[in-house]
């Protein structure tokens, strides 16, 4: 969505909603509940359509912006289940994501000074203070593989998700094992996905422009991403907000790992048998349609048996990490607990994911003794190669 988009611009799209809640559940015949807020409190208001109606009601002066509107807007977990399952809104021209309309609602709330207390407010204050939400990246490529001439570039800036740092360190060691030359992009700063998601759009455009200027000289190389949120944002959203953006080749690190096993550059060691379950992160799965690579990696690991959770691939259930609003009490935690319950039902030993937000969220709701049962795919690969 262009950053100049207004609520008025999405009115026609929003008005196509038939209020049938098709946005809340997965494909027939399983019909599995996928929208976390709707799963938590089934009600039209807490569905993609409810958000669309709220936008229409705002435009029709039936409701005003206030703090509760911000809490409501930020309570959607941004899991993209609505856009994957509602065909009607998708069929309207011009197409606008339901989630983008929710983001626009957040943007309008922020513009009016309404930001939910808690993590969203912390982000807001940081963005207001620094004009950015990024951290200095400690990602350093080992000299053995670091080469400015390399055809692949690590997009290594994300460091504001709790477990991202430890995952990044593992990634560096695995890159060294794989041995292919690689170069690195960006020293600091958020790619913009968090700012985009949570309506901090004023700071977003200059930030994205600056990134693109740095990326441009490398645009013919392949960019490798660790965090699916960054990848989805750069690949799918930069073209919408940067007029001179040109498509870049890109891979998620799970795809790099899958290729490395295929090419024999990574070899599995027998470390005993273990059952794992894989949680499809929303932005890697529904956002980028990358479902197979992580499973191929798991299949390449000797002694590792994948036991799927009931909801998987495009019907995966969110971890709840991006739920920052307080409209529905405990929504983020309850969402993560629901997913953990599903994981426990598989009797798997480990819950593997490929997104730092998911890992952090699951660890947050697990007791201390079980926190190690959640791992990033890269961490498991490092242990078993």
């Amino acid at each position: 969505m262009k950053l100049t988009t207004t609520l008025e611009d999405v009115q026609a799209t929003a008005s196509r909603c038939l209020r049938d809640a098709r946005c809340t559940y997965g494909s027939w015949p399983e019909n599995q509940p996928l929208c976390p807020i709707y799963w938590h409190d089934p009600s039209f208001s807490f569905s993609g359509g409810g958000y669309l109606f709220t936008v229409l009601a705002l435009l029709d002066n039936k409701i005003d912006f206030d703090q509760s509107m911000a809490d409501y807007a930020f309570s959607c977990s941004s899991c993209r289940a609505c856009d994957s399952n509602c065909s009607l809104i998708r069929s309207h021209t011009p197409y606008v994501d339901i989630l983008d309309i929710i983001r626009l609602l957040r943007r309008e709330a922020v513009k009016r000074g309404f930001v939910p207390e808690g993590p969203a407010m912390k982000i807001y204050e940081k963005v207001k203070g620094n004009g950015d939400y990024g951290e200095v990246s400690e990602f350093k490529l080992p000299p053995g593989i670091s080469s400015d001439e390399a055809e692949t570039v690590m997009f290594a800036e994300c460091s504001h998700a709790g477990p991202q740092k430890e995952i990044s360190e593992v990634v560096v060691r695995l890159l060294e094992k794989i041995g292919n030359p690689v170069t690195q992009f960006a020293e600091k700063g958020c790619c913009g996905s968090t700012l985009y998601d949570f309506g901090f759009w004023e700071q977003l455009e200059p930030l994205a422009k600056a990134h693109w200027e740095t990326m441009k000289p490398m645009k013919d190389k392949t960019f490798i991403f660790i965090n699916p949120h960054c990848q989805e944002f750069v690949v799918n959203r930069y073209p919408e907000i940067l007029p001179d953006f040109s498509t870049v080749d890109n891979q998620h690190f799970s795809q790099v790992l899958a290729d490395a096993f295929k090419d024999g550059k990574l070899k599995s060691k027998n470390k005993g048998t273990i059952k794992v379950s894989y949680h499809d992160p929303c932005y890697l799965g529904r956002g980028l349609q990358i479902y197979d690579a992580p499973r191929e990696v798991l299949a390449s690991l000797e002694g590792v048996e994948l036991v799927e959770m009931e909801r998987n691939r495009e019907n995966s259930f969110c971890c709840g990490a991006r739920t920052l609003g307080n409209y529905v009490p405990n929504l983020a935690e309850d969402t993560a607990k629901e997913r953990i319950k599903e994981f426990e039902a598989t009797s798997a030993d480990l819950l593997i994911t490929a997104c730092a937000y998911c890992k952090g969220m699951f660890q947050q709701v697990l007791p201390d003794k079980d926190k190690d049962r959640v791992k990033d795919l890269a961490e498991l690969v490092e242990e078993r190669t």
Partner: protein
Amino acid sequence: MLAKKESNEKEVACQELREAIGAEKVRDDEITRVTYGRIRHGFDRMWPFRKPCFVVFPETREDVVETLKLANRYKIPVTSVGTAAIVLGTTEGGIILDQRRRDKVIEINTDSGYAVIEPGVSFDKLTSALRGTGYKCSVGTMPGPGTVLGQGLSRGSQSFTTRYLNVILDLEVVLPNGTVFSTGSSHFENVGSHLRYGPYPDLAGLYTCAYGAMGVITKAAIRIHPVNEASRIHFAGFDNYSDAVDYVKDLINNNIPEHTFIWDWHMYLSWPLASSDMDTVMPKILESDVREPPEGTPYNMVSTLLSGYKEQVDVYEKICAKVAKKCHGSVLSDEEVEKRFPATLAGFNQQYGDFHYREAVHWSKGRFAGWYVFAEPKDIKEVEKFAVNELTKFGKTINPISYYSHPFDFGRSFLLRIAGFPDPDDIELRMKIGKKFDEMYDLALKRYGAVPIRPIGSDRAGTYMQVLRSIKKTLDPNNILNRDAGLFEEGEL
């Protein structure tokens, strides 16, 4: 002052209900009230905005009973809705009873052939539950998340009506005073829902097309149908609707089809489209005149579900070809349909293969504006000409002008549902269409004996409405139930 008193009373009522059934089932926050304030056909500015005082999400029958007793005591209007209530008007300051959480399939009886469901069960849910049971249910042309009960009670169009008038067998009803009763055979202890009525009068009829005004349904038994050894969809094309009706009637008279549907070409091309086709196929349809299909595109397509033993279906197929020829039509082979109308075939395969409904993405083109009537076979032919002629007067701006038509009850009555899709924001045009539809209902009734599917004003029904009002006054003396949902004139009895 009075308004303030009323408002305080409603706050007290809300609190009281929370204590009775659980706070998590009653919401009165502004966002909830606003998002339930205009539920007719989506958030449609053409319809009045009526904000409820609170919304109730019952999880048990007892929750419904408690809600109605309280509403009756406080005289607060209640509108009972499901997931996709697109025909109901709601009441300002009333209670919305949203039964979406009551979505259990309670029983699938494959001996007698019925399913007992809660009111929130959607077509997607029931069709899914029926997989592997050897039974299928009727599916409508509404979206899969729409409730089976909503469709059945409003007697909308649906498959398998060729042999029946109604899918409903038995209903469990709650009255405003808290009385609970069943309309069919399950009213007797330890008896299932196989019999719609007897030895007493057919009370389910009182709740069909009553739009919730006579009681709140908390459970329903609906017909399900066996999946036979073989089933096949047969397609035939016709240059005009009259021939298509003759074809359908002939087949029915000879006990051939399990079900038939007549589609105009705008409908059979646009209804089953995938989102990706909207930029390719749809523009051509939008630019066309429905009365003039392109060369080689049949004006009407008739889809016929043939089922039974394989030998039987083989013979039926031959009979269909014979009758199509007799009625000046032609058989469209599967190969031809797949080649020329792939989305259409995919849509039918989904509906008659998996027995669930393909989401109608053509609704994204504009706001649905539909006109529907029932008429006898000879009359429906005239009604079609009349309706197409009237709708095309609005020009291409309301394309696709989609209609489908199908028989009920062995062809005694045919439904014709024709719709255009005007720009949702063009309120003036839509008001004009609404006015035109009212005129068309009047004329079709006078000229062709065509009965409208929805109430068109109680003055036309004379003593029928008087009796109905008397019954309503007895069952719902405070007039709290679905007061503005359309059965009676808005507001008062």
